[in-house]
C-alpha cells in the first residue's frame, strides 16, 4: 500500500479485525516502559502510523472454559484441594481485572514468513498495563485493529519533525519508518521528565547534545539516518527543559524555505501537544496531533472519546471566541487531527 497519501480513506476500507496474538518478546526498555512484540501468525491488515490497536488486558477467553456449568448447576464440581475454585476463575471476582480493552498506538510492524508482528510500547500506569507487563514469550493476547486514522504526508512537504513526549513516542517510531520509505527527512524530538523515563535505545558512545543540537543519538531514529534532540525536564540527559524548548530552538534556526517544507507531527500529553501546536503555528509550520482520549469501544459506538474540533459545518456549538465546533471521535475521526482545528 502506498503510504500516507493526502486523500485519506476510512480505515475500515483496508480491513480490520480481531486477532489471537502471541507474545514474541516483552522487554523493559526503561523505568516503567515495556516493548511488547506481538506475533500474528495469520497476518495483520495493512496499517499506517497513527493507527492503534485495542488490547484485551486480561487472560483471553478464560471464563468461558473456566467456569464449569456443573458448578453453576449445583455442587457437582469435584473440587480438589489445590485446585483454583471456579469462582476465583471468574475474572470479575479476582482482585481487579480490566473490563474494557486498552488502546495502544502501533509503534512498528513487520511482515515475514511467520505472519505479521506488531510492536507496542507501553508504560505501566494501572491494572491493564500491569497485566501487559507480566506477559511472557508465548502468552496469548487478544487484539483488535488496526483502528483509527493516520498521519498524512502533504504534497510539497519533505521534512518531518517528530515530537513525542512520554507515551506519545511509540507512534513516532512507526512514522519514522514511513517517512524514511517516502524519502522524507526527519528530526526526532524526544522528551521526558527525567532520563530513566526515556523509552528509547541510545546509540553507544553518542550521548545526546546538552544544547539541543540534533545528533544521531537515538537508535529508533538513527536507523533511518534521522538525528534526534533529547530533552529532560530535570536536565538529567540532553537539553535541560521541556520538549518545546528543543523544538523552539530548532524552529527558530530554520530558514523560511525550510519551514515551508516542514510538518510537525506530535503525540503526548494534551498540554504538551497544545504547546507544540502553538509553537508550530507561531512559526507558520503545519502540525498534526495524535490525541489520546479515554476510550471504551474504539470503534465509534460509545461516543466516549470526543474531541472539540473546529467545524463550520454542522457545528454543535460556538466557543467564546466565536469559533464553531463539533465533537469528533478520537477513535474513528482521529486519533490524528490537524492541530489548527483542535480547540484545546
Amino acid at each position, binding site marked *: 500500500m502506498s503510504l500516507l497519501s493526502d486523500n485519506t480513506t476510512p480505515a475500515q476500507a483496508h480491513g480490520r479485525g480481531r486477532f489471537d496474538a502471541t507474545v514474541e518478546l516483552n522487554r523493559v526498555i526503561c523505568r516503567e516502559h515495556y516493548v511488547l512484540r506481538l506475533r500474528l501468525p495469520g497476518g495483520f491488515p495493512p496499517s499506517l502510523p497513527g493507527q492503534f490497536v485495542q488490547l484485551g488486558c486480561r487472560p483471553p477467553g478464560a471464563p468461558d472454559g473456566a467456569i464449569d456449568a456443573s458448578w453453576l448447576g449445583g455442587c457437582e464440581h469435584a473440587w480438589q484441594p489445590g485446585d483454583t475454585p471456579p469462582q476465583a476463575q471468574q475474572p470479575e471476582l479476582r482482585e481487579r481485572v480490566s473490563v474494557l480493552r486498552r488502546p495502544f498506538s502501533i509503534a512498528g510492524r513487520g511482515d515475514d514468513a511467520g505472519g505479521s508482528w506488531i510492536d507496542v510500547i507501553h508504560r505501566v500506569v494501572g491494572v491493564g498495563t500491569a497485566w501487559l507487563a507480566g506477559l511472557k514469550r508465548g502468552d496469548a493476547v487478544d487484539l483488535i485493529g488496526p483502528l483509527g486514522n493516520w498521519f498524512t504526508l502533504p504534497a510539497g512537504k519533505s521534512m518531518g519533525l517528530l515530537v513525542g513526549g512520554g507515551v506519545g513516542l511509540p507512534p513516532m517510531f512507526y512514522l519514522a519508518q514511513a517517512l524514511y520509505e517516502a524519502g522524507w527527512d526527519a528530526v526526532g524530538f524526544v522528551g521526558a521528565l527525567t532520563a530513566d523515563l526515556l523509552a528509547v535505545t541510545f546509540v553507544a558512545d553518542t550521548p545526546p547534545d546538552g544544547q539541543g543540537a540534533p545528533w544521531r543519538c537515538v537508535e529508533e531514529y538513527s536507523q533511518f539516518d534521522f538525528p534526534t534532540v533529547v530533552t529532560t525536564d530535570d536536565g538529567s540527559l540532553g537539553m535541560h527543559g521541556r520538549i518545546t524548548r528543543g523544538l523552539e530552538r530548532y524552529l527558530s534556526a530554520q530558514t523560511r524555505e525550510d519551514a515551508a517544507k516542514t510538518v510537525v507531527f506530535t503525540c503526548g500529553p494534551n498540554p504538551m501537544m497544545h504547546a507544540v501546536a502553538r509553537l508550530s503555528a507561531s512559526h507558520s509550520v503545519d502540525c498534526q496531533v495524535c490525541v489520546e482520549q479515554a476510550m471504551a469501544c474504539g470503534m465509534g459506538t460509545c*461516543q466516549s472519546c470526543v474531541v472539540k474540533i473546529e467545524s463550520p459545518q454542522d457545528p454543535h456549538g460556538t466557543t467564546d471566541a466565536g469559533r464553531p465546533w463539533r465533537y469528533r471521535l478520537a477513535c474513528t475521526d482521529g486519533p490524528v487531527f490537524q492541530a489548527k482545528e483542535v480547540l484545546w
Partner: protein
Amino acid sequence: MGKNTTTTQQTVTPSLAVDLAGLKLSNPLMTASGTCGYGYEYGDFVDLSRLGAFVTKSITAEVRPGNEPSRIVETRAGMLNAIGLANVGLDAFMAEKLPPLQRMRQDGPRIIVNVAGHSIDDYVNTAGHIAADEDVDAIELNVSCPNVSDGLTFGTNPKLLKELVGLVRKAMRPACKLVVKLSPNVEDITATAAAAVEGGAQILSMINTYTAMTIDINKRRPRLANGTGGLSGPAIRPLAVYLVHRVYRCVARDAGVPIIGMGGVQYWQDAVEFLLAGASGLAVGTALFADPATPVTILEGLTEHLRQQGCKSVTELIGALELHTDPPAAPYP
C-alpha cells in the same frame, strides 16, 4: 425437570425462539442501547444477523452533542458513563441510519429504536415518527437516562410515566411494539413498572445504569466531567437480576408483559440467570466493548446448556426460578 437426561442430549436441538408480546425473535439476544451505535459499527467483528434484535442508541428530536469529556471511567468490574445522549438527531437518523438497519432486518434481527426526549410532546413526536416506518419493530422508551438533567423525570414518577406511555402508545403505528426501559434509580421499581404497564407498555426492559460517582483523590474532583455517571457492567448484574425477579413476580408475570433483562450480561451463565429470574429477552451492553461477538458466544453457550438440561425450548427457563420457600417442583431422579 430433566436435570439428568443423558438420553435426550444428542437428540434435542433446542429452540431459541422467543415471542415478546407478539414481537417474534429468532433468539433472546440483543444489543443494549448506546453500546452498539446505530448498526454496522461492529460488522467486522460479529455476524449481526445472528442477533434476535438490534437496539439503537437513544434518538432525540434534535441533534445532541452530549456532555463535556471525560465521559467514561472504568471501575472495578464495571464502568461509569456520562455520554449525555449524544446522537445524530431524528432527521439524520431517518435519512442515514435507518436504511442500513432496514437491510440488517432482512437478514433476521428485529429492529428496536430507542427514543429519548425532554417533554411529552417531544417523546410523542419522535416515537410516532420513527414507529411509522414498517421496518421498525419496536420503540424502546428511554425514560431512565441518569446523565442528562431531565433524563430521569419520567422514569421516577409513576403518574407522569403512565401518562407519557399512554400518549406515546397512541401516537405509534399499532403493529409497532412499545418497550419501556426502567430505571433502577427509584425507591420501588414495581411502582414504575406497573405504571408503564397500565399506560400501555407491551414489553419492559430493565435496567438502565445506576447513578454513581468516582473521585480523583489527588485532584479532589469527580473523575467524570459531568460529576456523576451511570454504572454498568458485571458490577450491577446481581442488582439487575434481583430487580428483574422482583418486577417479574410482582407485575410482569400476571400482566403477561415480557421483560428484556440487562445489566452486566457477559457470559452465557449470566444470561441463564436473567432468564430464570423472569427475563424473556437479554441485552448485552458494556461487554460489547471488550468483545462485540459476546451475544453470539452467549448464544452458543446457552444452546449447549439447554441441550444439557434437556430443554426443548429456551422458554422453559423463563421465570423457572425456584425459591427456597417454593415447594420442590419435581423430585430429583
